């Protein structure tokens, strides 16, 4: 870890101006930033601690749930109404990391967590377009078992590690931010960007922009939601493939569906074709299977992660079955 200046702003104006320079980094829960500082991946001149300004409030109203960006993952996961009204969100949170990490990690930080690509995290490895733009991608023909098959480019195949973001995506969440020139709202679906030619750019956020809240609308679909995650051990492991789904049924038929994918894509991923294929279909394993096959359309695998093409549809089917029989 190299020397840096630690600052703890007392209000939003200070936070926004301190965070603006490109050598500044924000920290809240610290569960990832401290890691990256120690690995020498992050070398900020200034570390801006947001704990003094971020909201830690969970607020319900008739439209839905507003979550302060400083809310700890644990508090969100165990909120009684989240458990019953947005089961996919609670399940996703509890499937991630460990209790100790969830007790520290914030909702804003979870959305902005960096990839677990080991080449990104090993500074002795010179090729990583995310860490060193233009240097190449060691993962492309390296060890890529955990890497993405959707949204990949010739410059990066790092998968997005968040479980929570996948559930929020299926629940049509909206992200609220502050910038020095005014606040804005953007659908979670628009927050993250695919790597394309610029893997170093991971979100639409402008320099110094801070996520302040996440809004999750209440709905019948949210109640009928589920998160299924496959992994290499029972806990404290990143997803090999995961899926958050939300369903609206009209009798025994699907009226509306959201299918989001994790562990397989460079950003939290919506399987739009699979969703569309379900509309009007009976909520049966057969139609779930037909739709789930569309979830891997356009996927590009390596020899190491090819199994995800087979695994992912099975995960989607299981999530749909769970949601279909819940609520």
């Amino acid at each position, binding site marked *: 870890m190299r020397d840096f200046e630690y600052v703890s702003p007392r209000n939003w104006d200070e936070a926004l101006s301190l965070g603006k320079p490109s050598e500044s980094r924000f920290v809240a829960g610290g569960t990832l930033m401290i890691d990256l500082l120690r690995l020498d991946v992050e070398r900020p001149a200034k570390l801006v601690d947001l704990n003094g300004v971020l909201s830690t409030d969970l607020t319900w109203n008739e439209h839905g749930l507003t979550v302060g960006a400083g809310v700890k993952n644990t508090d969100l996961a165990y909120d009684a109404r989240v458990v019953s009204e947005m089961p996919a969100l609670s399940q996703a949170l509890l499937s991630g990391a460990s209790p100790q990490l969830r007790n520290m990690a914030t909702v804003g930080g979870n959305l902005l967590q960096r990839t677990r690509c080991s080449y990104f995290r090993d500074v002795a*490895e*010179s090729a990583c377009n995310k860490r060193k733009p233009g240097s190449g991608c*060691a993962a492309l023909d390296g060890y890529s078992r955990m890497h993405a098959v959707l949204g990949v480019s010739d410059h990066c195949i790092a998968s997005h590690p968040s479980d929570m973001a996948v559930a929020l995506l299926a629940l049509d969440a909206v992200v609220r931010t502050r910038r020095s020139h005014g606040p804005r709202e953007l659908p979670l679906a628009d927050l993250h960007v695919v790597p394309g030619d610029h893997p170093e750019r991971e979100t639409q956020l402008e320099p110094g922009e801070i996520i302040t809240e996440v809004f999750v609308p209440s709905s019948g679909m949210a109640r009928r939601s589920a998160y299924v995650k496959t992994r*290499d*051990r*029972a806990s404290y492991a990143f997803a090999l493939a995961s899926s958050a789904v939300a369903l609206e049924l009209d009798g025994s038929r699907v009226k509306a569906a959201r299918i989001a994918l994790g562990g397989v894509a460079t950003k939290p991923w919506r399987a739009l074709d699979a969703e569309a294929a379900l509309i009007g279909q009976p909520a049966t394993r057969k139609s779930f299977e037909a739709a789930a096959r569309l979830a891997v359309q356009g996927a590009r695998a390596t020899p190491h992660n090819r*199994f995800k093409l087979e695994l992912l549809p099975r995960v989607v089917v299981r999530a749909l079955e769970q949601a279909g029989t819940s609520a």
Partner: protein
Amino acid sequence: MTEQSVGKGIDRVDGRLKVLGQAQYAAEVPVANVLHAVIVTSARARGRLQRLDAQPAERAPGVIAVLTPFNATKLPGAKTKADPLDRVLQLLQDEAIAYADQPIAVVVADTLERAQGAAELLVARYTEETPSVSLERAQSKAYQPKTAGPREPADSSRGDVAKALEQAAVRVDQTYTTPMQNHNPMEMHGLTAVWQSKDSLTLYDTSQGIFGVRKKVAQIFEIPAANVRVISRYVGGGFGCKGSPWSHVALCALAARTVGRPVRLSLSRPQMFSLVGYRPRTIQRLSLGASRDGKLSAIRHDVVSETSQFDEFSEPSALQSRMLYACPNVATTHRLVRLDVPTPTFMRAPGEASGTFALEQAMDELAYALDLDPLELRLRNYAERDLNEDKPWSSKSLQQCYRRAAQKFGWAKRRPTPGSQRDGHLLVGWGVATATYPARQSPSSASARVLEDGSLLVKAGTQDIGTGTYTIMAQIAADTFGVPVERVRFELGDTDLPETPVSGGSQTAASTGTAVKAAVQDLKDKLAANPAAKPTELMGEAKTQENPQRKGYSCHSFGAHFVEVKVDSDLREVRVTRGVSAFAAGTILNRKTAHSQFMGGMVWGIGFALHEHTVRDERSGRVVTRDLADYHVPVNLDVPDLEIIMVDEKDEIVNAVGAKGIGEIGITGMAAAIANAVYHATGKRVRDLPITIDKLL
């Protein structure tokens, strides 16, 4: 008459200190004026260090020194090997790079953070050479090592295997592969080095073998061994990596000597994957031949493993295949491939852990080929004597292990057809395998005397690597002297105490337990012979050798694992849901710490089967899985309640305390039992560990 302490499940005598955080470990022992050192390692796996720009680091705040191959003191003594457990070290003596993450510099600063920060400022330039790290691709270059493990012959042969295989009615011929694994004790390697004068050194190290460290360090610095004191009072896990002195130990001492102040050095977790050995990959071909009625006629076990370019460690995976079953025709070979990798080392049941995976899964495959219950196959080939050494067993209670564990598990209800047992969408599989590990004994020594308050003080150099040595030695001493265990204090972990062997190979209870018993007996005899003497002035002493009776016998522990797994029929996630294992390992000195040892081995067996896997990038030779998030070991949720049956066994041949050693047997056979259960659940044979989802789709 004092109640006997041996055999009881008494609490660890050091437990309270550890729970309260008062047990001081090597890298936290308070030492005045101490500096902090950080090792900088090579990004490349092969070639030479051309240039190392140390100036920015040297100018960083708090930095006292930067040692590099270009300025480090030459240590001619570094070249010779002290003994077979010893490794060839990399001590900044030249610019050659032989593996990724080899030490290339040591940064010494006034605080740990400043040393770490400065370490990141070093800029290295290397020659560009392509490393060879693929065991599979280099397999054709395999050579025959001097030995398998430290002392067994690399090859063995009895009978005529080729002919027996040719004539066998039923055959199994398969290749099994096991991955590289790293020890990763919770306490990473670390030490504090204090030079009292230019030829007198004290090391607070975390070690399984303090006398080996003393010898090696004395040799490197060309000073008398008597001038080196190694202290290791508490060790936060060893598992084999702390059995040999590694480069960082000498580098820390070198840094301390260079700057003329005490220096502390702790490896980082990523450095644990390259600087202190590992369990090497194995490629094992196993051929079995049997008659229709399930009698083994042939076993052929050929092992290919890896070692470094500059040193030899041979994983002895075929040893158990020489002795475990009654088979007239057996041939085994061990071969090594030199790669641009660090030297592997002992890791819990080196050889048997990986070797039983191959042998015991092959036995399961043979049972299916014969349409015979896999437990029945093992009973039909029960070895009544060791056919490899052609000796009787000192004791063997494996039949009881099979029977008792099978009964407790409910094995008789097993339906043999794969996939025939279900629990909702989960496929249920049951598997069995045999566990075995040699019962070793090495020379050791101890002393004992009575204190003013009438209590007993017993001393032996030895180490407690978390296994319960403090406790069991106090129990042995208490029973020998005839006092309650609370009246005994046992001191260990210091080369100023009587010399003892390495805490490895499951031999500490047998070796140093024997010495402790003899030393206390000696004290007792002296007290009886000198009734006039002041008791506190008498000293009991013992130097013990291997029990001479052992020569005519083969000494091993045995056990049996019965395991249930559940496999998701769609998602293919495997979870171990039940495990019943029985072990017969001679006298159980402490049922509580023994339970932990057996269970620890079994839990590691779960990790061996399902999780552990160090991945090297085949282009760079660097380890990709460099932390405990990427290198998986089982978490609590992966471990069901494991039932352990300790089968009573009295063995007066093996050693004076009758203990056969329990630290390693728990892991042997466990991975095979799980793999066999996975086959029973799914009909899929996974012969390449670990068994992960992608291999079951």
